[in-house]
């Protein structure tokens, strides 16, 4: 356990040293590391926990005691899962320490809390899947199926729909429910003959159907009200993608949630000079771009310049984490139509509408929302170029 804790802290140390003025990207990268590496550790750990009594020949002693089977199953699971959560604490402490040592401050550290919560749910699902499979099959090798699922999702991002990914924030409730279902099933079915004529406890009877029904309802919602060309396309997103960003023409519009969950459109704030940036919030360039936008907002916000960042990320919680972590006050929108694709322009309807070929991307509009400048890649977050583009608009239309 001590070695695993040190290992976790080292992963956190490595992931936590990220770009940005705040802890946003550091928190996001740490959450991703937890969902990738620590999830595999959890699979291993919980598979062994399920088989520990048998491996130690302690089964006879434990099962000859009057404790109900379902309580034994759940208590053993919670004990091992709690150990995984301790490793997760180690990971985030390592990340925060790394960030603090390298940057001298950990501003926006609340982002770590949000990512800890996300990771805890993901690890709950990984743990419950590994534990239940290993317990019901009677071998820790069965738990490895959960690990294989993880590897397949990591390797198959261009082929699998977003709904299959436990570590996307929008899927957390569904996979959390699925975890409850799996643990409920294990508690209900494992050594059910041991109960004799006594019925299972009420919670044991209720957990698996509640978990399963919740997971199915949530999965239906994700598919029906989401956007994923590999599953089901949203008519709203299809409409957005049919627009076209053309110089001197009105910029494509969109209606997307900001970092506080409020639906935001460009038409909500008429008469502004918009600096519309499409960014990948997981990349260093993306965070640099967001920091540039904050500078612009601070310097030119009073003159009617409004930066609007659209985050192209499959994880719908990424924009919120980075925005809060970097303490951004301008709208940072989540493009919930983002999906797995090899090219940026194909990865989201908004990116398609703006004909993006490289991220980050910036479109600067005039006060009538006509596109007047388009910058991509390294040019997009080049300070002087951005300044020049915005100054030109302000010179043309001071108010």
């Amino acid at each position, binding site marked *: 356990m001590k070695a695993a804790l040190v290992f976790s802290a080292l992963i956190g140390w490595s992931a936590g040293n990220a770009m940005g003025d705040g802890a946003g990207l550091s928190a996001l990268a740490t959450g991703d590391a937890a969902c990738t590496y620590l999830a595999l550790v959890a699979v291993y750990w919980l598979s062994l926990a399920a088989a520990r009594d048998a491996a*130690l020949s302690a089964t006879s*002693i434990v*099962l000859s005691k*009057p404790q109900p089977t379902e309580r034994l199953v759940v208590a053993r699971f919670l004990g091992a899962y709690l150990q995984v959560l301790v490793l997760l604490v180690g990971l985030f402490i390592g990340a925060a320490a790394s960030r603090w040592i390298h940057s001298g401050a950990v501003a926006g550290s609340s982002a770590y809390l949000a990512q800890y919560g996300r990771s805890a749910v993901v690890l709950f699902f990984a743990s419950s899947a590994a534990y239940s499979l290993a317990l019901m099959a009677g071998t820790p090798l069965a738990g490895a199926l959960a690990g294989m699922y993880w590897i397949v999702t990591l390797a198959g991002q261009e082929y699998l729909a977003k709904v299959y990914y436990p570590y996307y924030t929008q899927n957390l409730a569904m996979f959390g429910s699925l975890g409850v279902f799996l643990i409920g099933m294990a508690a209900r079915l494992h050594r059910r003959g041991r*109960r004799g*004529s006594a019925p299972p406890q009420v919670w044991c009877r209720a957990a698996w159907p509640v978990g399963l029904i919740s997971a199915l309802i949530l999965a239906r919602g994700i598919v029906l009200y989401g956007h994923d060309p590999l599953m089901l396309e949203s008519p709203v997103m299809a409409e957005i993608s049919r627009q076209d960003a053309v110089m001197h023409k009105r910029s494509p519009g969109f209606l997307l949630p900001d970092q506080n969950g409020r639906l935001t459109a460009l038409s909500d704030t008429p008469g502004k000079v918009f600096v519309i940036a499409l960014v990948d919030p997981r990349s260093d360039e993306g965070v640099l771009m967001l920091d540039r936008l904050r500078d612009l907002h601070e310097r030119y916000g009073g003159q009617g310049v409004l930066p609007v960042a659209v985050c192209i990320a499959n994880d719908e919680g990424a924009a919120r984490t980075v925005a809060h972590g970097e303490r951004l006050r301008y709208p940072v929108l989540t493009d919930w139509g983002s999906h797995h694709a090899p090219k940026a322009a194909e990865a989201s309807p908004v990116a398609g509408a703006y004909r993006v070929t490289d991220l980050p991307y910036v479109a600067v509009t005039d006060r009538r929302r006509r596109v007047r400048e388009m910058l991509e890649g390294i040019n997009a977050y080049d300070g002087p170029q951005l300044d020049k583009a915005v100054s030109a608009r302000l010179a043309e239309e001071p108010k």
Partner: protein
Amino acid sequence: MSPFSQRGADKLKVEIEGLRKDYDGGVVGLYETDLTIGEGIFALLGPNGAGKSTLMSMLTTLLEPTAGSARVAGFDIRHRKEQVRGVLGYLPQDFGLYPSLTVFETLDYIGLLYNLRDRAERTSRIEEAIARVNLGEVRDRQIAHLSGGMHQRVGLAQALLNNPKLLIVDEPTAGLDPEERIRVRSMLTELGRDRVVILSTHLIEDVAAIADTVAVLHRGRIRYVGTPAGMRDTVRGQVWQISAAGDRLSEIRGRYTETALQRDGDRVLVRVIAEEAPGDGATPVEPTLDDAYIGLMREGGRAN
């Protein structure tokens, strides 16, 4: 009064009727068995594979019987499993414990499994159990660092935590050195004074030392139930001792059931079981439990 004392409490009874266990592949672990086990130490004696552990596993609710029924303190082992587990303490034959936990932590965990939720009461029970099995000096030592005898005593302590009316111990002296074996037997004798103890063993010395009643099992069937003295009576008048050598020795050993051999100068003293004197020079001797046990095994072999 010690929490482990059952004096004055209602005496428990184990009633077994037609209990049978079939394993996959047509192997019968235990044929229809009828037994009533009352107070004192009840020993199940038999060779490996005789069905002792099968019977014990069914009584401890770890194994589902194929047919028949059994009641422990009036609770049916098929339907009232939790209640059965509540009144018994069980020490399995080959058991493991969590190596990184100390003796105290192990017993604390087992106490929780017994639903001893009150910490003060649990601690008191643990301390009593530790004192009873004489493990006070190693209470804070990790299980991984205990000797085989100490490990066995921790096993006994965990079986005592719920102050069981019925204590079931499977081969508790197997693999122990002679000193530790005597120590475990003494503990069982003391425990058997105020509760029912079912002891499974393949060692006749265990039966001779501590059992009030013995049941001999062979190939899944009970061959004898009664007192150890009564067991000796099953071969009374049939045990002979002969001094022989050479071909005569070979002939005797081939013809009769031999129960012991002892070198006597150039010759050998042979104990055999025979209905009648096996030749000149054979003298009748007082039967031992070994003689009776081998005699019962021989009969069992014939019956099968």
